[in-house]
């Protein structure tokens, strides 16, 4: 049983890491095509990518849209979760369902719907419209994570704070948010990575200013290139760094 299990594990890891390994290895290709044979190691594709104005602008756009849309999604989701956890409102089950609903709908449909709405109301496409779409997809996530994190312990502390004269805003700021910090940080970082990586909404809802995945998409149209490998490797590095930071800080603390 044991050797079989280890063999399966090894094969699974090879399968999972194969494309990433190929991506990273051939980003150092000293040649024009990111396929074997490896003609030598070079950093020139990284130089090319880092000096590519369009690409760097798109990266900046992505970061901006990711951070702002995630902050908004988290704020809206957290306040809604707080309301549902604290006050008995009529129809709370229906509202919970509505807030979660976008999670079960394909991004493509959300994007098309927003495109239909914006084109019918004459809203010009921009990073803002893409950001709106990203809030739509991340709001359910932020809401669900916040709602799941709220428990008796923190509700008791909120009650005590209110008893000691805190206004609702003070309760949220001084007690609820700090006590839920690990969950809120997790929701924020997940939202950032989802928004940062999101393609179809950004593709359909932006026009002149685009985000990184859209820019990469247009790079793909000109065929295989080690430059694409270099961008992909850089994006991977950024995401992995975020995940590792999250794992080492928030999740570990959350479990302690």
């Amino acid at each position, binding site marked *: 049983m044991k050797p079989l299990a280890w063999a399966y594990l090894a094969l699974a890891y090879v399968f999972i890491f194969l494309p990433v390994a190929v991506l990273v290895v051939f980003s150092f290709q000293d040649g024009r095509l990111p396929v074997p044979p490896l003609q030598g190691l070079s950093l020139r594709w990284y130089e090319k990518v880092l000096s590519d104005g369009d690409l760097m602008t798109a990266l900046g756009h992505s970061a901006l849209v990711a951070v702002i849309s995630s902050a908004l999604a988290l704020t809206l989701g957290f306040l809604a979760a707080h309301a549902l956890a604290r006050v008995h409102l009529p129809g709370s089950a229906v509202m919970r369902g509505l807030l979660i609903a976008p999670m079960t709908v394909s991004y493509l449909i959300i994007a098309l719907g927003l495109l239909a709405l914006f084109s019918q109301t004459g809203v010009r496409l921009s990073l803002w419209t893409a950001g709106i779409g990203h809030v739509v997809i991340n709001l359910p996530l932020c809401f669900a994570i916040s709602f799941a994190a709220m428990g008796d312990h923190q509700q008791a502390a909120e009650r*005590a704070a209110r008893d000691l004269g805190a206004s609702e805003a003070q309760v949220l700021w001084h007690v609820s948010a700090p006590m839920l910090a690990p969950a809120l940080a997790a929701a924020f970082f997940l939202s950032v990575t989802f928004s940062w990586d999101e393609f179809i909404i950004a593709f359909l809802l932006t026009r002149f200013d685009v985000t990184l995945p859209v820019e990469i998409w247009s790079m793909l149209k000109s065929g295989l290139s080690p430059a694409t490998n270099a961008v992909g490797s850089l994006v991977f590095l950024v995401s992995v760094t975020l995940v590792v930071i999250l794992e080492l800080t928030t999740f570990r603390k959350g479990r302690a």
Partner: protein
Amino acid sequence: MTADVTILHVSQHYAATTALDDVSLTVAAGEFVVLLGPSGCGKTTLLNLIGGFAEPSAGQILIGGRDMAGVAPAARPTTTVFQDYALFPHMTLAENVAFGLRMRGMGRDERRARAQEMLALVGLPGGDDRRPHELSGGQRQRVALARALAVWPDVLLLDEPLGALDLKLRRAMQDELKAIQRRVGTTFIHVTHDQEEAMAIADRIVVMNQGRIADLGPPRDVYLQPKTLFSAEFMGEINKIPVHAGHSPLGASVPGTGMLCIRPEAIGPTGSLPLGPARLLDAAFFGTHVRARYAPLARPDWVLTVHLPQTARPEPDSVAELYAQSYVLLET
């Protein structure tokens, strides 16, 4: 700093149940009142209504003569020590204690000084930079008390604050609680299900049962002269002998009809009310007394529990004449 509390015809109904049924009670300023009763008797509901965490279905609550209808917990001159303490885990002890002052806009230095003072009052001087998880249960309880008292409440509400402590610590904290209350002079309304705790700290005990007040008065009166059978039984062990028109199967003659209630320590070889001869069933040494169980010869199927002096050594199967020294006759 202190205020009286008046509760007028307060009822609280939830869907199908009645948590409080037309309760009226007056608590004097500076009084230490204990609401005592089994779980579900309505004592915590009453405390929540005073604190403003719920509103009564009917009736009125006045604090210092002011009607509290529609007043939020934050705006009431009350603070609460919660059962689970509800300390803020992300704040130091000093920050916890100063929280209410900060919400009132008090300056940092003033806040700090008041927090120190409060921590000293509850016996936790220094070490205020620690966080709640570093403390023992008893210490947390003290911090919760300091936090609630720091904002100069007129009325302090305590929701089973000693419930989570072990017995020894609980008895020690009772004495301190009482001393602190004497020092600050604030009205304390304290909820518990432990009648020994109630007797140890209360100026007045309010015994509650099924949403009503079953008895109230100083501990001595409630224990020795209970007004209801429920109160008599809840305050401690008691022997009950039915009396009908002045007669009981044991021959005891007390005018009236009802249940003759006698505490175990009020029975002995002498007394004003003869209970007839009884045979010793068994006896056990309890440290402060000897707990003996007798079967009256007139009704051998009954058992009378008697607390004999520490030095007593009753013979097995011996027969003794028993008398009651004090008793009450209660309606059933």
